[in-house]
């Protein structure tokens, strides 16, 4: 089991009142599996993703990645764990605006020590793989939404993570671009990686091995 999420709860403490984002959420994910978590806005999908990615500690329950709880690691070790094992893709792309496509793809090498030639070759391969060769020296502002998301996807894959967490990656994309991105996620899973996709986009359903429905912080159906 690559990922084991066990009764994870998370509540945001706000002045206007507590907001329960996750409530006893349990989920397992194996390597090579593509799981889509669907649900309406505000149902806790992004919180689940952040919690799974080691960015947001749960109030209760535990998350085990390869049997290890990342929240038991030091902040430094947890950051390193994220850099090596997890890739992130977001709806807003979160590309570094002043870096060109190639440098954005190379950005994770800042966190993980690796030989500069090896990582550069891999970045080139990824840029080529995602059809961005002609755009490799363009900054994000000069790219289309689809190209930006493919750049973000290439960046997420640079350090060959075991798990890819995608938060509404098709939210800002047209149908064709969305299909392209979803195809790449599926491809990643088929190559042995695990994908946890949170989305309310129905187009993702055909690409996922399993679809889970989340509503008001609870899993309503574990899918199949």
């Amino acid at each position: 089991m690559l990922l084991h999420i066990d009764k994870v709860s998370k509540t945001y403490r706000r002045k206007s009142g507590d907001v329960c984002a996750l409530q006893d959420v349990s989920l397992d994910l194996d390597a090579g599996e593509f799981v889509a978590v669907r649900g309406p806005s505000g149902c806790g999908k992004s919180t689940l993703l952040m919690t799974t990615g080691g960015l947001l500690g749960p109030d209760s329950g535990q998350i085990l990645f390869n049997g290890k709880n990342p929240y038991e690691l030091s902040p430094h070790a947890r950051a390193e764990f994220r850099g090596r094992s997890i890739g992130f893709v977001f709806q807003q792309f979160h590309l570094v605006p002043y870096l060109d496509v190639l440098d954005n793809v190379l950005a994770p090498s800042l966190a993980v020590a690796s030989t500069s030639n090896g990582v550069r070759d891999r970045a080139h391969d990824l840029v080529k793989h995602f059809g961005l060769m002609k755009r490799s020296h363009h900054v994000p502002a000069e790219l289309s939404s689809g190209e930006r998301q493919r750049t973000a996807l290439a960046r997420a894959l640079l350090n060959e993570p075991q798990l890819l967490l995608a938060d509404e990656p098709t939210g800002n994309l047209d149908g064709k671009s969305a299909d392209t991105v979803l195809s790449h996620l599926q491809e990643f899973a088929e190559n042995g990686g695990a994908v946890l996709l949170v989305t309310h986009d129905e187009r993702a359903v055909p690409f996922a091995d399993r679809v889970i429905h989340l509503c008001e912080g609870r899993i309503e159906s574990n899918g199949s």
Partner: protein
Amino acid sequence: MSVWRLVVREINHRRLNFLLSLLSVTVGVACLIGAQTLLKADRVTTGQLLNDRQAEIEIAVAEKQKAVEKAGKELQDAIRKQMLGLGFNVLILPEDQELSELHLNGTMSATMPEQYVDKLAASKIVTVNHLLPSVTKRIHWDERDREIILVGTRGEVPILHRGMKKPLLAEVAPGKIVLGHEIHKQLELKVNDSVTLNGSDFTVSAVHSERGSVDDVTVWINLAAAQELLGMQNLINAILALECECSGDRISQIRAEIVSILPGTQVVEKYSQALTRAEAREKTKQSAEAALAAEEKAGQKLLTQERSARRQLEDRHAGFAAVLTPLVIFASLLMIGLLTFANTRQRTSEIGILCAIGLTTPKIMFVFLSKAAVTGLIGGLCGVGLGLTTGVLLGGLPSNGITLPDLFATGGLLTTVASAPLLALAMTGIASWVPALYAARRDPAAILQGD
């Protein structure tokens, strides 16, 4: 991919933020270096100005001294000559000589031994400089049938305990005669004429111009000749003494000194005009010395005023720098801090994704502090250049002929300049630390969820 590449790309992307930060550092460092350069320039300029002024004053005083000495010598010589024309200061007479006879008839009847003059010359008398023994008698010049005053003098008797001085009055040589103005005019005699005086032959060696005194009806011959002519062998009527240095208040001292050596004599002041002139000479000398002292004093006063003015200027600059420099540096720090903070706000999304892809808090801080270091280093170097230029121009160095190496040679400034880029690094580091820490500690989950 390195942090430095990220920093350079970010600087290139957000040029305005970088330029403003650079400007802040440059201004802060320039203010510090400019103030230090200006203060150093003040000190060097002050030193140079005071040295120049001192030299000018010394030259002026030396010139004045030279002029005073020259004028003093000229005056002394002139007075000496005038005194020669005027006669002697004091007259030493036998105690029983009636002064009325001298004043009414211009002649003397009382006598004293000629050896008195030798005795006086051999004494340690300090107030009298020149001695002249003489006989003076009113006689009838038979060959010319007229009354004259005959003065026999043997010339100056050197005072033995002193070095020889140039005699004030030349001796009338034997066989020679010197005529007063009235005599030679009325008798139509001139130099080298031969005359017979009561049976003795003489040649006129000199004729005096008009003096308006008894000298005009006086005839001078050699003392021995006069003594023989008058039947006064080894006797004299008076010793004329010139006291070159004397002034009015010393006449009693001279009297006492002479009478103690030559008992049975009296000392009378002769020709008070001479004393007045001597006093005038003394006064002139004193006045010249006072003028010299005043020149020196004025020079010193000028120097003191200059030093005081320069000190005031330096103090004003130092006070200004003491207030302005910390203020500008503080404002620069604040500006850098605000710009870094604004930069972290602009880079919120970037911070979130850097956290997500595995950058640790120290590494994110390093990203921001690296940019601060680049800003600090470049700004520091620019600030040094700007500060030195400003300091040099404000300090007026080009017009004073002072160069930067002159300033560096005085020490201190070189250390400040050398350490300025490090100071700039520290400035930007300190100012950026809190914003960088704020950026590194931001919750990536909140950022990435678009909170």
